[in-house]
């Protein structure tokens, strides 16, 4: 087992990275350890760098709706702190076992939850970032104000990079006010076409939804639309009316809706099965729903974004691909090790010029190829 290092300052982290890279040790970066199975299996790590020693909430600037967090801060702890001031970091991915997911891990994997509908992905909420590169460089980009265009936006580059460019140490993020109240309208159907049409209507209406999700399994499912604000109940009733007009059945409004959304988030992870993430055009959702049925899967998805997670049995993975729209990108997230070793979890390779550009970026930021080698797209 690789030695585990736990730096407690940014300088120490940079030294640890440089030391490991100089020794030729592949570095495995570990946050809460809830998504270590994502991506390709990669090289056998020579050393594990844990961010658990970097868990300070450095600043919470309530009046500015911003915060500065170290990478190892558990998402849950950060949210608790923000909630005490009536604010939130509008990122609600599933937090994994023991709710251990950290800010750094969520950013590095670009993981999202239902709130992505309104607020975007980690890259949309990060204002600045400090990273350690494998040559020991400590570098900061961006700032801690919500509007800033000075210098390159390297925070976006590191979001979703799976730790292959360096170690995220500290981030500044934009916060949002917590809605005064929320309410969710939901409706059901057994007709994929009807569901797709209803989702489209809801996505293009000026309801200002916090989230717009789909759920589907074994030929039936529905749509959930959350509103937040001072008039949530009234507004959700209007959304429900629109759902009825679209022909959805069993339409209702829930004001105590936390459990509904926890279930949607939970559907993005699987302890023993496979989770496949599909990104495509929202207009192709009907085909994705049919593909889910064809392989006996369970889907949760962001209706307006064209993003879905399907949970299925490992042996159904081959069947899924045959039924999906061709242009969709298909990424395997959770999967038993056997499956991960047998498939390319990132799906088909990016076009050659794009992959070359990604390799150039990797080579410039991590010339030693020490950071999480082999876990990313195209063997990066």
């Amino acid at each position, binding site marked *: 087992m690789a030695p585990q290092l736990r730096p407690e300052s940014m300088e120490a982290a940079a030294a640890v990275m440089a030391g490991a890279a100089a020794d030729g040790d592949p570095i495995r970066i570990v946050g809460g350890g809830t998504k270590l199975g994502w991506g390709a299996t990669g090289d056998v790590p020579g050393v594990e760098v844990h961010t658990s020693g970097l868990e300070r909430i450095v600043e919470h600037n309530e*009046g500015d709706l911003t915060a500065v967090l170290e990478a190892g801060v558990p998402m849950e702890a950060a949210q608790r702190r923000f909630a005490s001031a009536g604010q939130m970091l509008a990122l609600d991915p599933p937090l994994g076992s023991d709710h251990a997911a950290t800010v750094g891990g969520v950013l590095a994997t670009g993981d999202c939850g239902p709130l992505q509908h309104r607020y975007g992905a980690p890259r949309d909420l990060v204002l600045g970032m400090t990273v350690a590169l494998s040559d020991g460089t400590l570098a900061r980009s961006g700032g801690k104000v919500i509007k800033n265009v000075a210098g390159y936006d390297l925070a976006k580059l590191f979001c979703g990079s799976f730790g292959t460019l360096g170690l995220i140490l500290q981030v500044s993020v934009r916060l949002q006010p917590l809605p005064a109240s929320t309410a969710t309208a939901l409706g059901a159907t057994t007709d994929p076409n009807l569901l797709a049409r209803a989702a489209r209507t809801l996505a293009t209406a000026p309801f*200002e939804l916090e989230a717009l999700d789909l759920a589907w399994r074994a030929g039936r499912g529905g749509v959930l639309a959350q509103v937040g604000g001072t008039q949530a109940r009234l507004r959700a009733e209007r959304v429900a009316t629109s759902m009825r007009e679209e022909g959805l059945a069993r339409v209702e409004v829930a004001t105590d809706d936390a459990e509904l959304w926890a279930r949607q988030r939970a559907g993005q992870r699987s302890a023993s099965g496979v989770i496949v993430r599909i990104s495509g055009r929202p207009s192709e959702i009907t085909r994705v729903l049919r593909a889910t049925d064809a392989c006996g899967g369970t889907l949760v998805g962001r209706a307006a974004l064209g993003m879905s997670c399907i949970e299925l049995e490992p042996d159904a993975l081959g069947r899924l691909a045959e039924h999906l729209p061709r242009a969709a990108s298909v*990424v395997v997230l959770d999967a038993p090790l056997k499956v991960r070793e047998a498939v390319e979890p990132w799906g088909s390779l990016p076009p050659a010029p794009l992959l070359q550009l990604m390799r150039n970026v990797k080579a410039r930021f991590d010339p030693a190829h020490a950071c999480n080698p082999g876990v990313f797209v195209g063997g990066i």
Partner: protein
Amino acid sequence: MTNLAISKAVAPTHFYPPDPSSQVVCSIGGNIAENSGGAHCFKYGFTTNYVLGLEIVLTDGTVVTLERDAPGYDLLGTFVGSEGTLGVATRVTLRVIPKPEAVRTLVAFFNDTSSAGDAVSAIVGAGMVPGAIEMMDRLSIKAAEEATRVGYRLDAGAALLVELDGPEEECDARLGEVISLCERSDAIEVRTAESEAQRELIWKARKAAFAAMGRVAPAYYVQDGVIPRTRLSEVLRRIDELAEEYGLAVANVFHAGDGNLHPLVCYDAARDGEPERAEELAGLIIKTCVEAGGSITGEHGVGVDKKAYMPAMFSEPDLATFQRLRCAFDPHGLANPGKVMPTPRLCGEVPGPYREHPLERAGVAERF
């Protein structure tokens, strides 16, 4: 294609939120390069939040398509706002959003910018994210009112334009709250637009503010800095001190929600040395913004003009790390040379990927 043409093309049901004030003439390609914002970005975000895909051409002629949700590095996100230094964007795919159902616009007048700033804090503190919150100080009110005659109060030290948009019920519930928060922050008058025509008049003065400065000064230097919004009062006080010290008038127009200041440093080019003094003063204002924890630019970019201020915000290792990205895209530095980076740099060769030497594997030798 111009920015305004995009919103027109998707009207009336949808709109494209980033709306820089130059939207009649600025092109979407330029918006990509600058990551343009505008008056609505406190609520709706910037260009980077709306670009779904880009076709770019690198300096060696390679055409690359970048897509927002495709697996791999977010090269799209780093390209937007890179001021043309990574390549040229030739085709853009954007997200547009449903046009808000309702809009409620008001303008509140205050004795000074500090009370207006208190009102902004109270509004944001109450959990509201208005579609726009714009502030003008005494000098910009005067210039705008002289140019437009829309009835802005000339005895006011600050005007605060607040626009709520979204679902009808929410706007109606929140409007009264905004009015009372302004009153509690000692507003001398609050005027709510009762019609689209009145709304346009309220906006007309704000939109005219830059051009109208020609009425109070022969020339002006537009600065673009950002501060944490809560530092507004002290930064404006400092700007006043600097203006007095330099004997130049500075008008302030301010995207109050996101802390983006646009001080307009007035000068007369006919007076000996005044343009230089104006430039120097504008530079000190930027440094004040950085010292307050802000940025040297919120939406106008670094370009050539501000590259000298980059070291005020970023250390040498930070700048060298920016250069790594540049070199990955454009190793010969041919795309928009001389912009953004304060000192010219060359891209060194990248060492090949590390491979274990057979001697290392055998435990005979080790690497230092």
